[in-house]
């Protein structure tokens, strides 16, 4: 005797797994028809300016136990963070010596053209310098103008050592609008004084700068206020005193207070370069939010939800049964054990 039954059976309709399966089918079907939604992502626009003057050759960083120069460390750090910049990441590159930055290329999207940007950073060399002076403040102000022109945030790598030293009257004044260009000054170098390598005309290293190789005082402009107390002071013939200036300008360390002051004056942030992750964090913290609308398809969400439900459907019951079984086994073992004791 057979009973003509209708499908689905009532038990099926009462079975949660049936409805779970239906939900999965709906989700999978929906994954074909879902529209994209627009989300905002933050890209970055950076103008990276790297100081390539002589003091940047000072070897006071170490990488895997070897001393490396500041310039090499800057290059390695930049190349390390390049892949981690959020897309679209437009990066322009400029080098700085004397008193102006020299633009190598205008900002280009690293996400689309990684190899040339990476290669250009790797190719940075102190030999590209067209002059030995480094008037950091002037260079920074012009770099700020340049960043404004190419509509990017500034990342300025320098050790802050003005060569020749600033005159007693102080450095040039910043005439731009404070904070109009956002960005970061990255101080490079150690806190201890280190010798600066010296090179001959052919580019071969020939030792270090000695105390007599560099000027220690800038004698342009009016003399400092304490000049009258100096030995051999004469208002007309020796306004800076008669003794040669002594100092430590032939040695180099990161001039952090000076760079911080420059940052305050111009509205830029400051960080001392240590490891790449900290640099990346600081850059992203200082960079202007640069929202880019991105179309993001909803399909992965539908598919992901379907997968979660599928795993719940097929994974949870066996797990549940196994747990129940284990408990039952334990109880029965307990019961047998008790019985045996009794």
């Amino acid at each position, binding site marked *: *005797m*057979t*009973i003509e*039954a209708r*499908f*689905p*059976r*009532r*038990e*099926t309709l009462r*079975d949660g*797994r*049936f409805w779970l*399966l*239906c939900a*999965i*089918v709906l989700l*999978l*079907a929906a*994954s*074909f028809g879902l529209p994209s939604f627009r989300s905002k992502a933050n890209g970055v626009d950076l103008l990276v300016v790297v100081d390539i003057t002589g003091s940047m050759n000072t070897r006071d960083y170490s990488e895997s136990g070897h001393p490396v120069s500041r310039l090499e460390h800057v290059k390695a750090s930049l190349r390390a963070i390049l892949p981690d910049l959020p897309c679209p990441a437009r990066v*322009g590159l400029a*080098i700085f010596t004397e008193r*102006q930055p*020299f*633009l*190598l*290329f*205008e*900002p*280009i*999207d690293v996400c*689309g*053209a990684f*190899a*040339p*940007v990476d*290669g*250009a950073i790797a*190719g940075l*060399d102190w*030999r*590209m*310098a*067209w*002059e030995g002076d480094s008037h950091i403040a002037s260079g920074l102000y012009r770099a700020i103008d340049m960043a404004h022109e190419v509509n990017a945030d500034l990342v300025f790598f320098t050790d802050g050592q003005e060569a020749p030293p600033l005159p007693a009257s102080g450095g040039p004044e910043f005439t731009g609008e404070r904070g109009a260009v956002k960005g970061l000054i990255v101080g490079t170098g150690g806190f201890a004084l280190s010798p600066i390598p010296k090179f001959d005309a052919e580019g071969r290293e020939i030792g270090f700068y000695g105390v007599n190789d560099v000027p220690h005082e800038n004698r342009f402009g009016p003399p400092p206020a304490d000049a009258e107390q100096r030995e051999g002071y004469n208002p007309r013939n020796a306004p800076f005193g008669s003794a040669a200036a002594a100092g430590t300008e032939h040695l180099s360390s990161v001039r952090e207070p000076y760079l911080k002051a420059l940052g305050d004056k111009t509205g830029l942030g400051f960080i001392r370069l240590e490891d790449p992750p900290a640099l990346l964090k600081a850059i992203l913290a200082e960079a202007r939010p640069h929202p880019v609308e991105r179309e993001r398809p909803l*399909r*992965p969400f539908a*598919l*992901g939800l*379907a*997968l979660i439900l*599928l*795993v719940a*459907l*097929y*994974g949870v*019951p*066996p797990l549940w*049964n196994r747990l129940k079984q284990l408990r039952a086994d334990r109880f029965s073992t307990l019961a047998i054990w008790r019985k045996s004791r009794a």
Partner: protein
Amino acid sequence: MSLSFADPQLLWLTPLAALPLLGGVLRRSAFPSLASVPVDGLSRLISLALTFTAVATIGSTALALAGPRRGGELVEKIGDGAETALLIDRSGSMNETFAGRPPEGGEESKANAARRVLQDYVRRRQHDRFGVVGFSTSPIRMLPLTDKMDAVLGAVAAIDRPGLDYTDIGRGLATALSLLSEDAGQSSRVLLLVSDGAAVIDPKVQQTLRTTFARTRVNLYWLFLRTANSTGISDTPKPGEDTPQAMPERHLDIFFKSLKIPYKAFEVENPGAVEAAVAEIGRLETHPIVYRERLPTEDLTGFFAALALLSSLALVAAKIFEAGLFTSSLPLGLPEAARPSRRRAA
């Protein structure tokens, strides 16, 4: 043909496809002993098929999540093109007009003209690889050889910014040559020198350049942007003035000719002539070059999602037509018949 994934790390989810092997989605029925049920081949088959369908559903959903796609390989093709090093004079005088004045009004400086014309040239040379070197007091590698046109245009766009001091053409040439020789390909190599003047090349550097030119095998073009009233390539020397110091352009030309490599100089005195010269270089440089092109990719997410949808539909169908040992039509749930159910045990 190759399969790749947009998010390969999501492939770690595919082992979840083994979950259905632990049990199915059908109801279990208590039955005293399976031994009392005759073996039924069809039931076995259907049970296996359902397990397999469930595996396929989870598997293809996980694969679809990983963003599978086909294609995208690099293929080598042959077209017209070259590896070109742009060697660009960045001395301060490039920012003046052809008349030797700072540009005023709508006037175009030599650097402006060079930038505009080179940008056009780069855009038209789809298959070329370009590198850019600037030179003034020292040579500056601006961009390594690349086929990314955006990057090349970015570097060319930077050449009309304020220039630097002097013109050290010898070291500039050496740098551009080293840029070209880094790539050991068989394609034709072009060195395009854009300058508004020349300088004396140190004899020692001349010797090095000679050997490097011979080794690198390049076609050399010199786009000489001549300023009015300045010395040029084709000037006839006055007696006693035919020295590299007095007439550096003429002597650079003589040096280039003595290299015995394909060489052509274009002496241009206005922006229009720059365009004509660059167009001629474009015509001359039609050598075969092997370039790589990426095949278009085809997104296979839809395919795998459809597969998951079909197999999940089959599972729903199985669930809909699920019977039980005890049909609900009998209020007491008594065994109606002892025939084996197709969906006896999941």
